[in-house]
């Protein structure tokens, strides 16, 4: 069953001028989003600095989380649109993404937990 609402990316599926137009419009939209996010990130970093807010303040903590969320949004746009993984078969998409995300999430948890524990030991007993 052929679907006509998606654009093919397999080997000999050439795009028509019309499909091209649709893709280009999407590319420019994503470009604008990525630029805007980068601009917002820098603006926030300059206006509310870590030094002023204090590294342990809740304000800095929320900005930090905001940064990470914005980064993941940017990454998703790059992978799904620029690398058009979103247009590939679902099975392929999950074969690429799921093992990676699971492993990295585990590694982040274990490494940062370990790092903080080491920090506590150093703070109490000296480096």
């Amino acid at each position, binding site marked *: 069953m*052929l679907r006509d609402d*998606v654009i093919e990316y*397999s080997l000999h599926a050439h795009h028509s001028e019309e499909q091209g137009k649709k893709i280009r419009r999407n590319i420019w939209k994503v470009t604008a989003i990525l630029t805007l996010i980068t601009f917002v990130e820098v603006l926030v970093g300059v206006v509310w600095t870590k030094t002023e807010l204090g*590294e342990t303040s809740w304000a800095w903590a929320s900005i930090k989380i905001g940064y990470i969320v914005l980064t993941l949004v940017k990454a998703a746009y790059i992978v799904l649109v*620029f*690398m058009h993984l979103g247009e590939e*078969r679902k099975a392929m998409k999950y074969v690429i993404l799921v093992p990676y995300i699971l492993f990295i999430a585990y590694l982040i948890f274990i490494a940062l937990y370990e790092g903080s524990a080491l920090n506590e030991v150093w703070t109490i007993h000296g480096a």
Partner: protein
Amino acid sequence: MSGHASEQLDSKTLWGGKISPFSTSYGKLMMWFFLVSDALTFGGLLIAYGYTRHACTDMWPIGEETFNSMPFLGHGYPLLYVALMTFILIVSSVTMVLAVEAGHRMDKKGVVKWMVATIIGGFFFVGSQAWEWSHFIHGSEFGKVEMEDGSMAIVHGEWGEIENFSVFEAGHHHKKGDVITSKDVDLGHEFRHAAADGRLKGTVITLHDGSKANFAKKDNKDMVLVIKEAGGKYKAGDRVENHAEAAKLYSQAISTGEKGRVIYGANLEQNEYGPQQYGQFFFFITGFHGFHVFSGVMINIIICLGVIRGVYHKRGHYEMVEKTGLYWHFVDLVWVFVFTFFYLV
């Protein structure tokens, strides 16, 4: 059927098992697998950075303080340069995706145009990174000083220019009575070398050739000392906000005549910005990424030459451009994370 790539593939495209997994070609799927493994490498590096950073929170440098310079404009532009680098890389990713798009329409001219734009963007990024490295290695005008109580402090403020050295004891090169000005040597450079080597004592500087001189220097302005590592009197995070006192403590610290009381810039053993690991992570992560960008540019050039010669047009599809595109976007993707975790957070 949930997928959509349902066209019949010819036997050249089919894999050994006579089917084509995920309806993709072998090359494209293997490029994806390579990118996953490369992403694991970068993920490992950034997580190692996070581990180290969580282990030593207080003294870790602050991005907008470390990276606040612009070429030709000097200091006081926090994060702008690196934001510009990020923008350059995003734009070159866009031009690449436009090249891939043109390839799907068999538009050879379009592919060449956008690939050349991508290559130019790539060179701009590599050049920016070279400037960034050079700036990181040479460091600020003040450096990081070891205070009398053994604590380490970095300095905010405005550096007062050095006007001249007037020689009062001859060495191999300079005679007594010589007045050395900025026409002869880079006075600031000479001064910082002397301070780091312990050739600065009181108001006397011993120059490279062994001659001794008095130096005339404008006052440093608006100085604030920020303690990064605790000593006998100060603890990490303390600030000496009184400008006059900060200026006095600073000049005492750099002109003791002891070697190593002040550190400028960064190398693999020490750096002025923070813990030793900070410099090493900076060099390794941005270096490894820069190496990826450089090889990406080289691959883009090779493929672009292929496009110009019409190799892929004859083949009937521009999948090679798409595969290099995947690699190039990956480089951009990594930079998005480096930008956040090295510079912003």
